[in-house]
């Protein structure tokens, strides 16, 4: 008995030994900045020490509540997330099902699907910005020459079109990421389940809704959590595509915080924005995690 306990203890010690360096690094580069941001958001100071730290309580937060630009940025962030995630999921499942079939050049097809996701967002976005351009962009050249429109469409200069343009790039880029995770899930579904289903007289659609989808719930939720977190803190996309324009129609929370911090050098107010954003993402993660826990 004692033998087993010491073995358990030894295993635990080994485990702790392996985990400690990681935990320390996480504490250093993750938890410290989070605490520092929270501290900054409750005070007034300048980062170079020109103005010493002074506690101001909830001043920045109450200012935030009355800041129409903050509410606009929050709305933009939610709209972008709500539009892009379902579309990405739809295309992601479709692509995964397609890649799961056997056909010629399957390897190349998979590579092609992953390509947009593998390229850096900033680069992708610049390419798309050129294609959207109303004077020498691809889309307007096609639309003008085919006679669909008479005057070039200013994709990035219109509130609604700019948001649509942003969602299109996000869906184009990250559907393949969703597909990758879902494909991994698809491949772990035992084949004999489908055989059993076929014997029971299932058609392709009932097969999909009765077998595939329920068994994909886990991977889908994982993909949803990761992508929603990404979408809620989207930065490179609006920064490179529209710079938040026209006016502030595509200005996400991250972009607004970036401007406040790096352009206006107001670190304290910026920290308050970041903390609120952190809470939003944290809450969303909790919702997903509980959804995941209760259903399984």
């Amino acid at each position, binding site marked *: 008995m004692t033998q087993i306990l010491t073995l358990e203890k030894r295993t635990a010690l080994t485990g702790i030994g392996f985990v400690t360096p990681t935990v320390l690094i996480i504490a250093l580069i993750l938890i410290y900045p989070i605490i520092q941001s929270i501290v900054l958001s409750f005070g007034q100071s*300048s*980062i170079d020490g020109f103005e010493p730290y002074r506690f101001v309580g909830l001043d920045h937060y109450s200012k935030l509540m009355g800041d129409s630009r903050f509410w606009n940025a929050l709305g933009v962030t939610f709209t972008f997330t709500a539009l892009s995630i379902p579309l990405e999921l739809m295309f992601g499942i479709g692509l995964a099902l397609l890649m799961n079939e056997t056909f010629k050049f399957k390897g190349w097809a998979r590579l092609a699907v992953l390509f947009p996701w593998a390229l850096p967002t900033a680069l992708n976005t610049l390419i798309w910005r050129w294609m959207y351009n109303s004077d020498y962009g691809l889309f307007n050249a096609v639309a003008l020459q085919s006679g669909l429109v008479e005057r*070039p469409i*200013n994709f990035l*200069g219109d509130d609604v079109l700019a948001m649509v343009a942003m969602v299109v790039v996000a869906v184009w880029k990250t559907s393949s990421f969703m597909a990758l995770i879902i494909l991994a899930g698809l491949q772990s579904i035992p084949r004999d389940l489908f055989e059993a289903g076929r014997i029971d007289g299932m058609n392709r659609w009932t097969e999909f809704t009765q077998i595939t989808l329920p068994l994909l719930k886990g991977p889908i939720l994982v993909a949803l959590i990761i992508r929603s977190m990404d979408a809620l803190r989207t930065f490179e996309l609006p920064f490179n595509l529209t710079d938040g324009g026209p006016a502030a129609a595509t200005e996400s929370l991250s972009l607004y915080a970036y*401007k406040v911090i790096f*352009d206006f050098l107001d670190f304290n107010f910026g920290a308050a924005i970041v903390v609120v954003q952190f809470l939003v993402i944290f809450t969303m993660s909790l919702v997903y995690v509980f959804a995941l826990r209760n259903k399984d």
Partner: protein
Amino acid sequence: MNNSKLYAVGLAAVMAFGAPITALAQDLVMSIGSRGYGGMVERNIESFQAANPGATVEWNKVSDVPGDSRKLYVTGLMARSSTPDVFAIDVIWAGEFAQRGWLEPLNGLIADDQIAAYNPSFLSAATVDDKVYAAPLYLDGTHLFYRTDLLEKYGLEVPKTWEDVIMASKTVMEGENNPQLYGFVSMWAKIEGLFMNWLSFTGGNGASFFDADGNVAVNSPEAIAATQTMVDILYKHKIAPDSILTMRPNDARTLFQQGRSVFLMVQDFVHAPLSAADSPVAGKFDFTRNPYFAGNKDAHSTALGGWLLAVNANSENKEAAAKLVAHFTSFENQLSAALDENRAPGRTDVYKAPEMETASLIRDFGANFAVGVVRPSAKTGSLYPRVSEAMQIEITNALNQKKTVEKALNDAAAAVKQILGQ
């Protein structure tokens, strides 16, 4: 490891560790872009080192994109870094950097008569509490570029007023009947350049950012009328493409260079690419001062920009650094920059030099700068970036017809007043 390899490693180690130790009182680091001031940087550094034996200047080449170099500077300045000793700053940062205590006052370090020779409107942008914090290096500003061949073809005069520009654009566009040709392009994306544009338009109608008592006056009747003209150029007269609302200076320049616009209003840096040998409009364009509104002949409508040299407040060699600034902004060196690199001098006496008779380009730029309007950066100091951004947002709202001009400018006035605590 053989001997020569050992030697190389040893040498590298000495170089790596020796650098800070050998940083004597005369070693200076200077940060300035590699293109902005052309070949003059290298020449000035060489002549400075020749005139001051023992002094060395290391040229730290920073980005020529202002937003990028600003981020670099700010990071170092906030950490109270002692380098660079001397750095080039955009005219709109001078007030802000000075207020934050990042710049060393130059009074006493640079001779008073030299300071007196600097361009006064630029000096005012770098003056806080009667102290001068930076020396003007070169100026640039917005001009109205136009196609000489097209104006000639339709027998049109070089436009002086916005009314002329609109009329001429319509005449040429109708006559050419080419859907690819526009009348007017400029930088109306939500950038600093949009605010410069707006200052040009409103200034040309006799409006100003602050009234005589120092109150925010961005919603004055003159400003509203001028902004309405900007909106009308897009939707009523239809002489500008919709894409003008996403154009940065180079986008507008590209369109004009492709021969797709009659007029272009941007800064003078476009003159070089437009007149390059492979430019389709080379020899077919010229420029004039920014238009004004009929009846406002004396209105200031050239939005001024440019660069100044400043000394880091935490520099360990402030005197030598100021000497370098004085060297760059001396009469002789400013004259050379004007003659050889087409850089508009930051001091007024250079324009009167006899050699300038032949530098027609610089003289023409200079004539337009005489009707210049500086951005309200000195008065707003560290709040300038916010003020400019608030203006950009409301001007964009008006140009996108999301708000009426009057509503947008009233909101802009309220926002600016809130930022400034007025």
